[in-house]
């Protein structure tokens, strides 16, 4: 190969790799589990009742319409609490946590990573495992599911925000 073609190829290749890498850094920095809280069914959500977390379509089950029944300042109130939506590179993650008699009885996925087929597959595998772990430990402090780091982090922080709302 001619020297000029060789040097030009090296220069061009390095240049596009650096540009790609820099663009990727920006993606990584901006998307490391940013939590948006448009509908964290916080303390106010308890009193209004009905539409837990604004996403009424997703959790039509038990509306936390009975907050006044148990005005216990210490314990968590019963009901279903929708956690905050957590954005990842592979799509948003949001869960709803059901609390009854002071324990977490169910965690349902409102939304899981869906940017592409592989992400859907990973989340579908990880979500049941994370649900079992959360129910077993009764907290959001559970181990990472290997191969599904983004889903795990987002899932658990959505669980945590729901638990915060429940007063857990």
């Amino acid at each position, binding site marked *: 190969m001619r020297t000029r073609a060789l040097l*030009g190829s090296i220069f061009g290749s390095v240049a596009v790799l650096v540009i790609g*890498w820099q663009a990727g850094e920006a993606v*990584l920095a901006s998307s490391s589990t940013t939590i948006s809280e448009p509908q964290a069914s916080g303390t106010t959500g308890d009193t209004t009742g009905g539409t837990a977390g604004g996403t009424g379509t997703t959790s039509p089950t038990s509306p936390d319409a009975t907050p006044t029944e148990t005005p216990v300042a210490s314990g968590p109130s019963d009901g279903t609490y929708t956690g905050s939506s957590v954005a990842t590179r592979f799509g948003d993650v949001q869960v709803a946590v059901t609390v009854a008699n002071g324990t977490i009885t169910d965690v349902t996925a409102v939304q899981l990573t869906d940017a*592409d087929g*592989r992400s859907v597959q990973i989340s579908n595998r990880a979500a049941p495992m994370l649900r079992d772990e959360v129910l077993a430990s009764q907290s959001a402090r559970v181990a990472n599911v*290997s191969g*599904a780091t983004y889903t795990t982090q987002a899932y658990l922080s959505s669980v945590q925000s729901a638990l915060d709302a429940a007063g857990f």
Partner: protein
Amino acid sequence: MTTQLQSRPAMPQQFTPAPRAQLRRNFARRARRADLLVMTLWTSGAAAAALFLASGGAGQFASPAEVVTSLGIIAGLIGTDFILVMLVLAARVPLIDRTIGHDRAVGVHRSLGKPALYLLLGHGALLLIGYGMSSGLDPIAELGPMLSLPDMPLAFVAMGLMIAVVATSLVAVRRRFSYEAWHLIHVLSYVAVAFAIPHQLTVGGVLANGTAQRVYWVALYVLAFGAIITFRFVEPIVSSLRHRITVAGVRTVAPGVTSIQLTGRNLRTLGASGGQFFIWRFWTGATWWHSHPISLSSMPTGSSARITVRDLGTGSARISSVPVGTRVSFEGPYGLFSDAARTSPKLAIIAAGIGITPVRALLEHAQVAPGDATILIRASTPQEAYLWDEIGELAAAKGAQCYVMFGPRARSGPGWMSDQDARRGVTLKATFPDLADSDLYICGPSAWLDLVVADARAAGIHPHQIHAERFDW
């Protein structure tokens, strides 16, 4: 000779050779374009890897499973980029043909085939391993979940087709197939490339919807398929319809060698240079499905052109008997075996056997001053001295020196010469005293041609002064 030239006052301008500086500039421009093509090729490969980085790939090397998966994705991106580059090289884009010539474009296309296949096989294998590692499955068991992903079954079909396409193109395997069978399988590569597209867009996160990476990637496909559609299909059809070429006559030059006279409209606007070839298709019931790359054996006039062909395969035997009036479609002109490749003021030509045909047109078209061109033509037997009378006339008209060589090839000494001449001690330098200052055009069978090129290189001529056209299809 000069008197003959003076007797044609209408054409003196045409015979003024391009000055040396002009030839230098032309060559420098072509070399610059060639370098640019090389840079584009490698940079596009790097850009494919950069797409992965741009999607945040640098953060995907945290665990062994992630490393394997990431490498698999990068292999797929680069492999696919190579496939698209191969499509562009096979598209006979005029700019590429004018820069490196059809032969070299096909050569690069071929040399990319195996690396591309290995990268794509690596892509599949690494992702099976990587996905398997992250979900605790062995690579074989991972096939199930893999195939359940959207568009993955199609991608597996694409991989199977691609293996078939590359495998049938390996030199050892290709010989077992007829050209038509091989070509039919080769056309499947379009299907393979198309079938692989959906999974790229739906399965991996790299080309996710709404990203710049996706836009770039889709643009590459548009470019590659656009080039194929434009230059392999639309342009030849339009050109064939415009020029309306038909067979005007078929003349047997020698046993097994036929000149086909063609007529058509505005054939000068084809822009063909002497030495270039077209890919012809003769529309009779027996011949329409077979296309033939055949060089012009004389320069087109406004309404006529001529090609000369030797029976090399069953297909070319049949075209020697096409009836007058047969419609002819064509692709071309192609190739750099022409004046466009000139780098030096003088001209040296060596041709053997049927390799005489492009040389005949090249000489006719060449701009050389009297005494600046030397021709050496070779044949094993007098029966193979095709068109030699015409070469002799042209050489006389152009003031060119013409040598001939007869007889079987030499067993010792320069093996491309006839035995008799090799024994006499004929050398390349003695035949072409101005070789260092000439462009050397060589045309003939591949094995013979390699010997001439080696001899020319040994005589100290620069590679860019050597222009070869191989007759071995």
